[in-house]
């Protein structure tokens, strides 16, 4: 008998939805420009801290949060993609092999976006906090990467949402609700994943936040 099991811990779920809000906010304020950039910067600092947290949580966090749980070789990814199209896809308590690739891709893209942002100049009177630390040609290059990478992130977001809708509507597998509640209907043969506590997560968040704050308010001055 399948039973209801908690597969996503609180840190992963909070990370996901806070990130959604911040990415939308960053995109909007970035497009608006002008004095909205002050908010764009703050949002970017938060995203950087969150991504750093998620990378560490991917190494030491709950089982379903760990990279080792959802990064697979190309063979398994292809096998999963095939099973998906046939209709009888393999069950995964955490991220499936394709979703896992998207997690890694998004984290890398967001890290690139947040870091290049720190060194950017909008060529409209506003310089980011670390722009004076590097040469003008570096600022110009990193600003360009920042402006191009946002579109790659946007494409990934669209793909990610489409995939979630594909599972919901075609596969009749609601992956969105568990990202809110944390719980999934898990077949008997799959053991419940081991979840880490909230205290280590809080410590990692605090350290990531402190590092970004130091970078932005101490090192940059």
């Amino acid at each position, binding site marked *: 008998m399948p039973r209801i099991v908690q597969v996503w811990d609180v840190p992963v779920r909070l990370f996901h939805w806070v990130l959604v809000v911040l990415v939308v906010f960053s995109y909007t304020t970035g497009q*608006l*420009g*002008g*004095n*909205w*950039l*002050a908010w764009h910067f703050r949002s970017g600092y938060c995203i950087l801290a969150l991504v750093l947290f998620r990378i560490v949580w991917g190494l030491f966090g709950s089982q379903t949060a760990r990279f080792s749980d959802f990064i697979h070789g190309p063979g398994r990814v292809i096998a999963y993609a095939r099973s998906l199209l046939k209709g009888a896809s393999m069950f995964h308590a955490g991220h499936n092999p394709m979703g896992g690739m998207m997690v890694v891709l998004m984290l890398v893209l967001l890290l690139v976006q947040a870091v290049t942002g720190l060194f950017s100049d*909008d*060529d*409209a*009177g*506003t*310089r980011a906090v670390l722009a004076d630390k590097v040469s003008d040609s570096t600022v110009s290059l990193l600003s*360009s990467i920042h*402006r*191009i990478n946002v579109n790659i992130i946007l494409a990934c977001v669209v793909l990610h949402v489409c995939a979630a809708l594909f599972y919901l509507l075609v596969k009749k597998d609601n992956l969105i609700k568990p990202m809110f509640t944390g719980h999934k209907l898990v077949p008997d043969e799959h053991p419940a994943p081991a979840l880490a506590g909230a205290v280590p997560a809080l410590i990692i968040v605090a350290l990531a936040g402190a590092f970004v704050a130091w970078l932005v308010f101490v090192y940059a001055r």
Partner: protein
Amino acid sequence: MKRFTVALLCLAGLISLSAQAQMKPEDAIKLRQSAMKLIGYNFGSIGAMVNDKKPYNKDEAIRNATNIEGLVSQPWEFFIPGTDKGETKAKADIFKDADKFKAANERLQTEAAKLLQVSKSGDMAALKTQFGATAQACKNCHDNFREK
């Protein structure tokens, strides 16, 4: 009389066209980039003041805004056809969609004129608001007509 005026305008157009044609594309690119850099320098100075990165100084802000107001119409004279190639980020759309490009330039000129006006008031909060509006005019044109 009307016909004479039209003829005169045509002549003036021809003269300015030939003046542009004489300029080497690489010179036009350098000239407009220099003007952009000067605008950027002055605008960045106001940006630093209104974002508390350097102390606010009314006279300096007025000087910056005066320079900007004088310079914003300058680069556009050097966007002559063919200069979207070479050491430039200018897109070909500048020439394909000339009306939109002109409107973007006019928007900046309007905002820059307001910036100068506001800078004279000595009201830093108002200067910050107008800085934002002017920056958005810069960005509007960059987004549409400049390679990322």
